[in-house]
């Protein structure tokens, strides 16, 4: 008994060390991303302006040259090449080159940053795992544990996107910055010594409901970063299209991001993909509440805000399917929806008391 307790305490302290180490590695990654952005600023790319202002250039780029691969004189297609073009109404702007801006050294730093992020992710995941082992349950009993799991999952989502060869490296800096903030908050304000659960949390639904909730949050977060950058990039493109001259800093940064249309598409996909899972999370929560508290739905603040978040995302999806609401208006809705999620997480746990009072702060 005491021996077990000692091992558990031992594991818990290993977990803490791992979390602090992960923070150190994330900090290194943060500086590497910064270096990528700084070196990238040396390149002079202004493809957006060219695409938007010089109609000729745009048209030339756009003309779908049916690529015919030549094989010594007689040209025979090896495989028909598909030409794509974007729908009318969308601005046809090429994606930016990424933070490194085509600069080789910048790219090198960027790669170092991604590698460091992978390392930090593994260390942090180890921290979450040892924490789980130390308490012998799912590591989601209080806000400290939520936070460390949440940032691990968010970084995991980012790395998964990279592994799937998606254009997502632009997200590195904002993501790692917020992960550091999140962890800083976790180890200072929210820290709770490792401990067991109150009876109401003892259920396999904990695994189902909370794990999906955290995953949804992480994915919504990634979507929100995309949406926010979309708004910036979109105003930038609008300004250029209207003949304006954005500031130098804005140009340097935004020019390297993907096109507004790409960012928009990215965040839509991310949000839409996770919406069914969020629906499931709420339903799973209701079933659990039915077992634990004798009612499926009681308009407890946490339940209410999950519902509000859900409706807000449904709003966003509807907005995208409604003429006149696409683009920026829908993007604002997406940000509001994420704001609801965030409030549900921090606001409700800390400021509002309800049955979901396990913040541990």
């Amino acid at each position: 008994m005491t021996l077990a307790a000692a091992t558990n305490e031992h594991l818990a302290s290993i977990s803490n060390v791992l979390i602090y180490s992960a923070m150190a590695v994330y900090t290194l990654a943060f500086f590497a991303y910064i270096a990528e952005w700084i070196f990238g600023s040396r390149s002079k790319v202004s493809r957006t302006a060219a695409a938007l202002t010089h109609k000729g250039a745009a048209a030339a780029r756009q003309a779908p040259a049916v690529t015919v691969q030549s094989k010594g004189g007689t040209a025979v297609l090896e495989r028909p090449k598909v030409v794509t073009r974007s729908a009318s109404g969308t601005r046809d702007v090429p994606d930016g080159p990424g933070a490194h801006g085509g600069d080789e050294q910048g790219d090198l730093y960027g790669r170092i940053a991604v590698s460091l992020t992978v390392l930090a992710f593994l260390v942090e995941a180890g921290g979450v795992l040892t924490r789980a082992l130390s308490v012998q349950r799912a590591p989601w009993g209080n806000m400290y544990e939520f936070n460390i799991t949440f940032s691990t999952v968010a970084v995991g989502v980012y790395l998964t996107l990279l592994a799937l060869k998606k254009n997502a490296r632009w997200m590195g800096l904002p993501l790692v910055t917020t992960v550091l903030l999140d962890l800083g908050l976790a180890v200072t304000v929210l820290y709770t010594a490792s401990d067991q659960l109150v009876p109401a949390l003892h259920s396999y639904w904990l695994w189902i409901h909370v794990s999906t909730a955290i995953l949804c949050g992480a994915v919504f977060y990634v979507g929100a970063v995309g949406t926010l950058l979309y708004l910036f990039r979109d105003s930038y493109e609008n300004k250029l299209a209207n003949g304006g001259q954005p500031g130098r800093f804005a140009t340097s940064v935004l020019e390297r991001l993907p096109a507004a249309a790409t960012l928009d598409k990215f965040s839509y996909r991310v949000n839409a993909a996770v919406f069914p899972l969020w629906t499931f999370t709420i339903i799973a929560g209701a079933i659990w509440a039915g077992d634990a508290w004798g009612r499926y739905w009681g308009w407890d603040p946490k339940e209410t805000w999950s519902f509000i978040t859900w409706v807000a995302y449904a709003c966003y999806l509807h907005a995208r399917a409604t003429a006149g609401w696409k683009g920026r208006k829908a993007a604002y809705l997406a940000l509001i929806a994420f704001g609801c999620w965030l409030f549900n997480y921090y606001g409700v746990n800390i400021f509002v008391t309800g049955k979901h009072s396990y913040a541990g702060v």
Partner: protein
Amino acid sequence: MSKTSQTQRADVQTHEETAHEETAHEETSREDAAEGAVQNDGDLREAGSQLSTAPVETAVPGSFGGPRAPGFAGWLAWTARETVGWARWFWRQLTSMRVALILLFLLSLAAIPGSLIPQTGSDELKVQDFKDAHTTLGPIYDKLGLFHVYSSVWFSAIYILLFISLIGCIVPRTWQFVGQLRGRPPGAPRRLTRLPAYTTWRTEAEPEQVRAAALALLKKRRFRAHTAGDAVAAEKGYLREAGNLVFHIALIVMLIAFATGQLFKSEGGKLILEGDGFSNTLTQYDDFKSGSLFSTDDLAPFSFQLDRFVGTYERTGPNKGTPRTFRAEVTYSEGVDGREKKTSIEVNKPLEIDGSKVYLIGHGYAPVVTVRDGRGKVVFQQAVPLLPIDANITSTGAIKVLDGYTDKNGKKEQLGFNAFFVPTFAGAGKGEMFSQFPALDFPVLALSAYHGSLGVDSGIPQNVYQLDTSKMKEFKDSNGELLKKRLLPGETMTLPNGAGSITFEKDVKEWASFQISQQPGDGWALAGAIAAIAGLAASLFIQRRRVWVRATTGDDGVTVVEMAGLGRSESAKVPEELGDLAAVLYDHAPGAPDDAEAEPDGVSDSDAAAAEGAEN
């Protein structure tokens, strides 16, 4: 269908659901015009029509009555036309996507106050505190229904409107979808080059051969395909629409299930001592509430007995005192006299009997006390359940000796004791009488004694846990103060002047309180929820798309194959799939040697066709 409706555009009255697609384009093309790309190719528009069943804002207000004939009959006819016109306009507004959007947004806004202001549904006490603290705001909030937001008129209005809108939206969409399933994908537009994904090559195979191969291929890939003219037209991904409709219908099913649940549900509470039992009839409940259509005959006949309650608590560490297990061990029997079975009920594990659920919701202690009269005769011996007032189960309550007691003069009287109990006492002189730990480590019972009339015969319902001392007199101690004493198990407090005694026996029982609820419609709600998730996944992950394959003989007698793809929304999958199909078809119709650079016509046009509702 879209062609005919196009001509009806000007006439508001004839706008039927069929007009949707055209207006969709009207909307998009207006936006396009703003961006300098005017889209006016009706042929392309046709290609993208009916790729979804999204309703479109068709409602246009205006004069519906038209010219008014003179006389009363004229006025009547005009008024009727006007009314019908406006009604239809209103209906269209209500069932439009835009209004659905606004209602959804309102619903989320309206849900906010309920999470910040205390609600009577969950915590009456807090509501009262709030009202006491905010004497001006309180009544205003009360009028606005802010203390019961989720059953308030305005909240209900929003969701009822939303669901009417939903029904009004789903019915025409379902018909439209059925129509699409019956019809065939539209033929190939003239200029395939302008579609979002396009490919072409020249082959020595005959056009008919190519078309036959394409048709076979597309059918094999489970497209709905047919040959129209010189091209094969195909479409796939109808499950998306089906999923979307299922999702929206499932929302309605869930709402109806909840509503019936509310109307027919019953919910009651019962506190049971270890060793005692309960059978499910109305009279046995401590408190009971039910939906407006519930009848007591609906109570399922079953009974159970609490054999033992087990509670354990964290002994050490910062979370000392936090509950670790709560378990009620029970014996139950289903039906009027069913076989007895043993089981345990825990916080996350309600007992389900015959459609009712028995939840464990609380527990506490019930010290066993014995009251004797002046002659030493036992007039009361019971475990008295006391109510916890804090997390360490400091408990209060009342001990009421209703009958059997006579004072030393032989006169009938009633006795009452205020009881205060701590399972773990801090020790004499160590602060207040508050429990230090929830388990029975150092139980102490503090009593104060009264005699007279308990007032239970007055007909006013009494709280069993509170003593009404208005018609009682205090027993006095030697100093003339109210007689009080702290008792350890086994100790006795003697009442003055030979009035008898009260003993705290060495036995403290535990009690558990249960909530027994019955709510029909749960199954439907769950089924609706599952259908909603499945439908949603289908609707968001399946792409509805069209593919056309045209094979014609070129000027030089060589066959030209053109393939194009169009998705409901612009997605990377459409070109990918087209490339895939093209590669397979290319094997059937391999490329012909090419002398001139193939440059399809019209490629320099910078606009391309878009499906309505195109996005991502």
